[in-house]
């Protein structure tokens, strides 16, 4: 049956038109028509500008006639458009009164805020035409893809082992061996590696479209171009980064990313996106017109009473996240990625900003966060907050969650790093971190699954650099070493940077193994920084956001060089995945509430059952009772962990196991490979069942069965 409302009513310079559908916003293909719809509260007029692909001059500019407007929405249907060969933008008329928040400028051609495909930066590092009037160009995307039976995996959050990675850094480096380096396709080629490592979730640093040329600096060391490599600067919230696709030059980045997600899912690996809704690439008052500033500045940005940009992001502007229309856009964007890309979860960069009102004040019940927590389409999507912002709002433990939000636990990172370097003031804090940070999360009833634990992330030192440098070395970034975190809680093990000293190198390897052990035996969701498993170094650079080169790229030859570290990572990840007792969802009770003869969790010291019996606050031990973590009715093993961050060896008295069980040694970081760690399930029996000796700065894991 034909619809009576799908015939042209207007003709303009040879194109057939009719009033469009205000919703959804953006460009949508409907049969032989394309519906264009854009919202602006304060614009007085709007023009649709159409280009043939890659051409500098538009072939037509079509005004939105009065009858094409409804409320504050301009919408238009064009018939028989060859949409695959069209790029489109908008011109907006309206007041230019910055003091009132308005910056309309009809001379600018603006990107659709809802653009689903953006070209202009299609091949990484390829210089664009800087004179072009329209730099980031929207295209029309037909959002069909044959997913077959794929859906988001819905892995229980407490079972996740997250691998934080960057599309380029992962495969651009030496020895990656992939055909399409630095692309989504390159990640597909590395799926067997991810499976071998054992992670079940990749968290991709931003993959929304951004401009790698936003960084105008050159390296003070060798004069080479510096980039915005990390991409924490959105051009569009609905479009994948074209240059991250091997097929980006053909504008097929959407298909390539979808295929990557599908292939990862087939291998049991979830995909979390790092999303940056706190600011855009338009910067401050001096920044360029890309989209939002010209479409509806006062709607999209948080402005001071005299019309300047608030800068809670540290990047020049702040998205007006709790403006109802911006809130809708954010919700729409997230729904879009889940619906059309089958994304499993999101990590929200500087998420505290999402809880500020339109004047920048923190709210107790931010409507945006509440909407996301209760959204039907996002109902099983992982929501993870970086619970702080650059404006001084630090909400680790207090981020409004409605039981749905998890947080990057920055306190886990800080406590564990300090313990690792033998800080004797941190033991009580470390103990909270090991049991899932109930001091932070229990009061809201959020449980262990609220805590994303990490020791390293893209911000800061890699794990190898954490044990190789006392101070950051960011001179290459061209900011006189002022950028990047100063308070790293790192220790170089006796010499700053690379060394041939075998004693120091042995200690560094041991410390890396200690760090990953602390992460993997703690309750919560562990997150590994990509490359740590091969001892990746950034040469002391703790803010490699601009280093699109060997500093930030993984060197896959490290897998051989640091084979013991890779082997250790693989086995301890497997160990965690095998032992449910390490992956509680809710808080531990420290009681034998089911009468098994042992509490679910118990602290120990160098003497069994006496947690206070330690050395200089640098030793601790704990035992998990597997009877409280049954898998299909089968109890897990007992697990005992002794951590000695003291610089001398100590004996630890072992708690007695139930009759018929014996302690087996799974890991001992104080012993050289291959005896530092064993295949899970094949651990040898400990000779002395009453005591173990734990070497200086070492950790031992025993299994009781």
């Amino acid at each position, binding site marked *: 049956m034909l619809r009576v409302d799908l015939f042209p009513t207007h003709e303009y310079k040879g194109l057939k038109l009719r009033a469009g559908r205000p919703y959804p916003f953006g460009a949508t293909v409907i049969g032989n028509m394309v519906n264009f719809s854009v919202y602006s509260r304060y614009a007085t007029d709007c023009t649709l500008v159409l280009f043939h692909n890659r051409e500098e001059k538009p072939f037509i500019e079509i005004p939105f006639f009065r009858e094409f407007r409804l409320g504050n929405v301009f919408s238009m249907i064009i018939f028989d458009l060859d949409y695959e060969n069209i790029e489109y933008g908008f011109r907006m008329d309206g007041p230019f009164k910055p003091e009132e928040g308005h910056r309309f400028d009809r001379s600018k051609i603006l990107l659709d805020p809802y653009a689903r495909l953006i070209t202009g930066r299609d091949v990484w590092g390829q210089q664009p035409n800087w004179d072009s009037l329209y730099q980031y160009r929207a295209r029309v995307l037909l959002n069909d893809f044959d997913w077959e039976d794929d859906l988001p995996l819905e892995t229980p959050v407490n079972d996740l082992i997250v691998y934080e990675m960057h599309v380029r850094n992962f495969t651009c480096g030496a020895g990656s061996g992939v055909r399409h380096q630095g692309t989504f396709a390159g990640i597909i080629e590395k799926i067997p590696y991810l499976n071998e490592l054992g992670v079940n979730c990749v968290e991709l640093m931003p993959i929304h479209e951004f401009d790698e040329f936003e960084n105008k600096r050159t390296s003070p060391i060798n004069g080479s171009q510096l980039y915005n490599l990390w991409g924490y600067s959105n051009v569009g919230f609905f479009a994948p980064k074209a240059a991250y696709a*091997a*097929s980006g030059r053909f504008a097929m980045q959407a298909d390539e990313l979808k295929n990557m997600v599908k292939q990862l899912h087939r291998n049991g690996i979830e995909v979390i996106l790092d999303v940056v809704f706190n600011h855009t690439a338009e910067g401050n008052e001096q920044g360029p017109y890309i989209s939002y500033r010209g479409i509806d500045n006062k709607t999209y940005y948080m402005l001071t009473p005299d019309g300047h940009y608030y800068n809670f992001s540290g990047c020049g502007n702040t998205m007006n996240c709790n403006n109802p229309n911006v809130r809708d856009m954010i919700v729409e964007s997230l729904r879009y990625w889940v619906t059309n890309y089958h994304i499993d979860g999101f990590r929200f960069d500087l998420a505290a900003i999402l809880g500020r009102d339109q004047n920048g004040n923190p709210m107790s019940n931010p409507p945006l966060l509440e909407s996301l927590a209760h959204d039907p389409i996002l109902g099983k999507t992982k929501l993870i907050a970086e619970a702080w912002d650059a404006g001084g709002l630090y909400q680790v433990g207090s981020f409004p969650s409605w039981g749905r939000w998890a947080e990057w636990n920055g306190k886990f990172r800080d406590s564990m790093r300090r313990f690792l370097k033998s800080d004797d003031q941190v033991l009580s804090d470390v103990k909270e971190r090991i049991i899932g940070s109930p001091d932070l999360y229990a009061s809201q009833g959020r449980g262990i699954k609220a805590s994303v634990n990490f020791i390293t992330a893209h911000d800061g030192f890699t794990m190898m650099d954490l044990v190789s440098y006392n101070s950051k070395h960011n001179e290459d970034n061209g900011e006189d070493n002022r950028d990047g975190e100063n308070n790293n809680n790192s220790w170089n093990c006796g010499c700053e940077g690379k060394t041939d000293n075998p004693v120091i190198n042995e200690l560094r390897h041991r410390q890396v193994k200690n760090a990953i052990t602390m992460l993997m035996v703690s309750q919560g969701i562990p997150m590994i920084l990509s490359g740590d498993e091969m001892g990746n170094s950034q040469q002391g650079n703790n803010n490699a956001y601009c280093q699109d080169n060997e500093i930030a790229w993984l060197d896959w030859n490290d897998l051989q060089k640091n084979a013991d570290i890779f082997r250790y990572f693989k086995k301890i990840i497997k160990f965690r995945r095998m032992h449910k007792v390490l992956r509680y969802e809710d808080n531990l009770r420290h009681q034998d509430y089911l009468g098994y003869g042992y509490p679910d969790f118990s602290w120990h010291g160098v003497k069994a059952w006496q947690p206070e019996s330690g050395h200089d606050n640098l030793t601790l031990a704990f035992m998990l009772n597997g009877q409280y973590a049954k898998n299909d009715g089968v109890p897990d093993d007992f697990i005992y962990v002794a951590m000695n961050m003291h610089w001398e060896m100590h004996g630890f008295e072992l708690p007695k196991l139930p009759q018929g069980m014996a302690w087996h040694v799974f890991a001992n970081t104080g012993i050289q490979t291959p005896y530092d760690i064993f295949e899970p399930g094949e651990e040898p029996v400990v000779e002395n069942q009453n005591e173990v000796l734990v070497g200086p700065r070492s950790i031992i894991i025993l299994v009781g069965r």
Partner: protein
Amino acid sequence: MDKAQSLETYKLDKALDSFNYQQVQDDIMGILERGSGVMIDMSACNYISSTGLRVLLCSKKVAAAKGLKICLSGISDEVKDIMNVTGFINFFDYA
């Protein structure tokens, strides 16, 4: 599926994109309507756009619903690479 099913060969031009997709789609559907499977000869084709890939996949789905076969042959390395990274490669049989 009848293994002895006859396949009618259909040769693509040097490109399959939004300029010619309608014709190609109509041609392939015409062959399927006649009850024959299609061997799509891609040896001359060195560019296939997003729309073009969709024509191939839709043809495959229509053919499958009729119990007919679509088979691709002579794919250039360039086209194969694009089909590979976008995942379309997995849906087809190849001669």
